[in-house]
């Protein structure tokens, strides 16, 4: 009984860690989506990640940076060296100074990171009606229930309910805190044509880009979960053995 109470108290204490979640989620309940990377055995889906990269490059990259991701990291998505090299070369990055002391632009190489779409914050705000499009490198970790939130945010554009006064240049979104977001609905049916021929529905694009950005935020997710399996399996056996040893050692006392 006492032990139960202690376990209950410990559980309640751990539950507390989630208390802020309750608080932030008060505003909107975010439905959970089925992701291949959730759960103990979760892994990413290379095809979806590759399509997601395409969505990012052809849509989001116009406004959002991805400054923590280098082109070489794309090897994780299944691209080989040549593919990465030619993908990087699609981008122009600033380098220098050269021997004359001037900065110059050159083709991107594998070790470069995704260049930012705007030279600085003011330029970004200027182009976006005063709002700042955040860098997306960590976006799924920087929001409560990140992947679910991102997916539903991208699909959550609606007509404002009767009586809601929209501010200038704002769009109604069911999942954005406060519901008024400065980002125009970024995904349009068929806006891109997928390299693998998958029909580019808005749901498809939202899901794919979420796979890509979840990887961008946590590139070691697969390695982490796989190592966890081995570590915990080892610990279970080790602790089981210790339990047997403990019983044996203590047997003569009882």
């Amino acid at each position, binding site marked *: 009984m006492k032990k139960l109470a202690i376990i209950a108290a410990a559980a309640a204490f751990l539950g*507390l860690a989630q208390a802020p979640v309750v608080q*932030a989620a008060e505003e909107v309940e975010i439905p959970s989506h089925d992701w291949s990377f959730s759960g103990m055995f979760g892994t990413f889906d290379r095809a979806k990640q590759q399509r997601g990269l395409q969505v990012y490059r052809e849509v989001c990259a116009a406004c959002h940076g991805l400054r923590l991701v280098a082109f070489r990291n794309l090897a994780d998505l299944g691209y080989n060296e040549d593919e990465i090299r030619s993908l990087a070369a699609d981008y122009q990055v600033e380098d220098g100074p050269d021997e004359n002391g001037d900065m110059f632009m050159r083709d991107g190489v594998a070790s470069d990171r995704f260049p930012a779409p705007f030279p600085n914050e003011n330029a970004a705000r200027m182009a976006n009606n005063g709002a700042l499009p955040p860098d997306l490198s960590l976006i799924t*970790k*920087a929001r409560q229930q990140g992947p679910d939130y991102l997916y539903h945010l991208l699909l959550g554009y609606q007509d404002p309910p009767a009586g809601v006064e929209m501010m200038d240049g704002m769009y109604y979104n069911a999942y954005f805190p406060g519901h008024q977001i400065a980002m125009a609905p970024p995904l349009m049916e068929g806006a891109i044509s997928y390299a693998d021929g998958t029909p580019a529905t808005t749901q498809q694009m939202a899901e794919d880009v979420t796979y890509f950005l979840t990887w961008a935020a946590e590139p070691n997710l697969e390695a982490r979960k796989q190592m966890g399996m081995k570590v915990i399996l080892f*610990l*279970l056996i080790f602790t089981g053995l210790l339990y047997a040893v403990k019983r044996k*050692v203590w047997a003569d006392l009882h």
Partner: protein
Amino acid sequence: MSGFKTNNRTIKWLDSRLPVFSTMNHHLIDYPAPRNLNYLWNFGSLAGIVLVVMIITGILLAMQYTPHVDMAFDSVERIMRDVNYGWLIRYMHMNGASFFFIVVYAHMLRGLYYGSYKAPREVLWGLGVIILLLMMATAFMGYVLPWGQMSFWGATVITNLFSAIPWGIGDALVTWLWGGFSVDNPTLNRFFALHYLLPFIIVAVVFLHLWALHAFGSNNPLGIDAKGPQDKIPFHPYYTVKDLLGLGVFLIIFAGFIFYAPNYMGHPDNYIEANPLVTPAHIVPEWYFLPFYAMLRAITFDIGIPFTGITLIDAKLGGVLVMFGSIIILFFLPWLDTSPVRSSRFRPLYKLFFWVLVVALLVLGYVGAMPPEQPWVTIGQIATAYYFAHFLIVMPLLGKLERPKPLPASIADPVLKPGPATNQ
């Protein structure tokens, strides 16, 4: 107990000049411990192991971390992405801090339940409270280092507390702490220096803690002193193996968090780089500070002389005093508790109030995570009032009013078996 024996001449030679081996033998092998310690006595050794894990992972992180406002956030992301197993080291350190508090809170509640703070263990307990204060300072400064939004704003809120000190001292003190006029690069630099230093001071205090422990040995679930050798068993192999078993169970849970829910106990806002121009919607501390944060915010009124309009202590200073007071009061526990009986097992009323205190702490933790609105403010005030009443009123009175159950004659007392005297 046999004392230290060896046939190895080198070891003998060294030991007679610097008795490390006989000292270790005395304190870790032959050391007599009560035979009836239950698993709640595991948390002390666990805390020691977590401390070592924190120091090792911390030093590894420090090799890659850059304490500069422009680079700190990115240097942590570099550790997560580019350093070999950097993500593992960082997640261990991050979750290790939470688990350190879980373990130490369990360790303290054990002491509270079994009266381990009473004579002759007052100094041992007091050293424990000092460790707790040092841990809190260390954890607070460590949380600032990744320079996320919660790092920055948490640091701003907490350092600002010192400005509650009156007569202009507070404001001067805060400027001095910051090394400037806001939380900025000098603040980050000194927090890093202190965050590296304090764990080693904790190690030193832990040594004193163990020294004090070994002066009288452990208390036990019955709370009575050992009457003779039949009440004690050598630490090795009995408690070495039991502590190891506890460590195994602990590591399974710890690994579960590291590998499957590494950010569960963190706040997503800390993955947004610090920005002094954007205040987060809710600034909340880490979970282990929530009960104290709730007490800080419970004082929403000025305290003064009634009907004169004179304010002696304004609400802010009151909150700060209550928050620090909630820990300082623990130093006085050995003298506030007037009962000669240690263990709750023989104190039916105290046992009841112990659980009320646990509930009050859980409620405070919950309130600490809520925005400062009704009904949370009132609930927090009631729980805070109980917290102090528990130590200042309930404990002194219970010792006088309560009729304890009869104590067993000795730990090994066969009449008690198979009752609570065996380990459980």
